[in-house]
């Protein structure tokens, strides 16, 4: 019987939530790596038992854990993330030059065709790769040497490479996003990179609001059947690109706020997308104290509020950029976690929601594995 395994990273450990295909009764495993921040866990798409986790604290640094049995047992693997050469400086919050320094791994993206190959997006922003199941990590330095690195600057969470999107039809193409630099694309497996930010506008942040680089992109998402169509939740503005990131147009439409963090695409409907509007960049909670997922079935511009089962008064949690995911069952399951420790699930395309758990530590990330 099919089922799902939801991988939840929190401020104080990781949790694994499992259910059968009905998705109405859940088993909760955890906390794993108790007391450590788990920014992200993700499973290999071709080996569901292979899961990688990023575990860190400000005290003891970065660890990477690997499971070969679906999360039952874990082994620490390589944790050395050394930049190639002298990394130089990027901009600090006040525009002064600040030395590049490794802090943590924000995002792990397993390869689409090799369970031993994983990409890691780190803070300060850079892209690393392992091809030996995590034993060793090596930077793909072409990104940091794009030429614009000295102008990248941190967002509130740090200067992080937080999003890695692999093109399922062109193995040499991938997209990454950095706060606050923007979107970059490689077409040669990570050797060379191009900024893909035309059409983005960041008023009040950049001297030139339409600069090539410097935008605080929060998340990008792709449906695997249409790899040239990308959706973006920027700091402000929801955007889409129909030409592989070559240009972007705003599709915020009737959203109550176009600030937010995650954006996801329905597993079976490439024009159905989900966001969670947040009031503003200084008020990291939903407008009017109502936690609402917004769904567009038209690829943006026209949005409907999904509220059934979600708190509609006195709710002041946030939903972070890596904390939303979809399964590939039918109807599509949508999952998101909050900074208040709730993980909500919908098993009907977002029409109705219920909490799987309500009282975890602040949720940093949510990923879903659809099990056979």
């Amino acid at each position, binding site marked *: 019987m099919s089922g799902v395994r939801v991988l939840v990273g929190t401020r104080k450990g990781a949790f694994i939530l499992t259910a059968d295909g009905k998705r109405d009764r859940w088993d909760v495993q955890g906390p794993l790596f108790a007391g*450590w921040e788990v920014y992200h866990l993700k499973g290999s798409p071709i080996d569901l038992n292979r899961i990688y986790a990023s575990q860190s604290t400000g*005290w003891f*640094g970065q660890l990477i854990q690997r499971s070969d049995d679906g999360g039952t047992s874990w082994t620490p693997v390589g944790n050395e993330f050394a930049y190639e050469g002298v990394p130089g400086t990027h901009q600090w919050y006040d525009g002064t030059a600040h030395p590049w320094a490794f802090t943590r791994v924000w995002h792990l993206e397993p390869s689409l065709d090799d369970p031993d190959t994983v990409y890691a997006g780190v803070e300060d922003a850079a892209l690393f790769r392992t091809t030996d199941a995590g034993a060793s990590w090596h930077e793909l330095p072409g990104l940091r040497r794009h030429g614009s690195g000295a102008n990248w600057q941190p967002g509130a969470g740090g200067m992080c490479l937080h999003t890695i999107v692999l093109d399922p039809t062109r193995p040499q193409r991938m997209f990454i996003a950095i706060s606050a630099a923007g979107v970059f694309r490689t077409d040669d497996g990570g050797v060379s990179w191009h900024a893909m930010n035309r059409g983005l506008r960041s008023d009040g942040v950049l001297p030139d609001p339409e600069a090539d680089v410097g935008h605080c992109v929060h998340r990008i998402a792709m449906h695997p059947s249409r790899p040239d169509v990308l959706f973006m939740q920027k700091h402000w503005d929801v955007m889409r690109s129909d030409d592989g990131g070559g240009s972007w147009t705003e599709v915020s439409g009737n959203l109550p706020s176009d600030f937010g963090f995650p954006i996801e695409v329905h597993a079976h409907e490439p024009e159905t997308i989900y966001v969670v509007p947040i009031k503003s960049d200084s008020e990291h909670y939903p407008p009017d104290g109502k936690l609402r997922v917004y769904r567009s079935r038209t690829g943006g511009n026209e949005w409907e509020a999904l509220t059934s089962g979600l708190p509609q008064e006195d709710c002041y949690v946030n939903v972070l950029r890596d904390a939303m995911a979809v399964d590939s069952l039918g109807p599509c399951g949508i999952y998101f976690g909050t900074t208040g420790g709730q993980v909500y699930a919908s098993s009907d395309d977002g029409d109705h929601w219920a909490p799987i758990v309500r009282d975890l530590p602040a949720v940093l990330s949510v990923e879903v594995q659809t099990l056979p």
Partner: protein
Amino acid sequence: MKVRGAAGPAIARGGADVAVRLRVVLPEHLRNLADVRGEVALEVPPPATIGRVLDALEALHPVLRGTILDHATRRRRAFVRFFANGRDLSHEPMETELPDAVARGEEPFVVVGAMAGG
């Protein structure tokens, strides 16, 4: 600090260069990571210095590499401190010899996560 399973006294083998068994106390997160209970017993060639103790600790428990000392710089991570026989050695060079009581294994070398919440 209450720690179960304290190691025994220093090993005397008769030669001046013979390694002695030192005792190291780790914070809970690192004990869990290294899968140890109580203190860690390490054999360190004399003279026992901060650096030699940490090298021996990482050799015995490779999973601790990068958690106490930075991988690249080999400097103490900012939120980690070293105490030994009532002294704060956090800011001493790695070549610093440990107090006699620690070098003889009578007192432990203590790795501490800096006092903070979070």
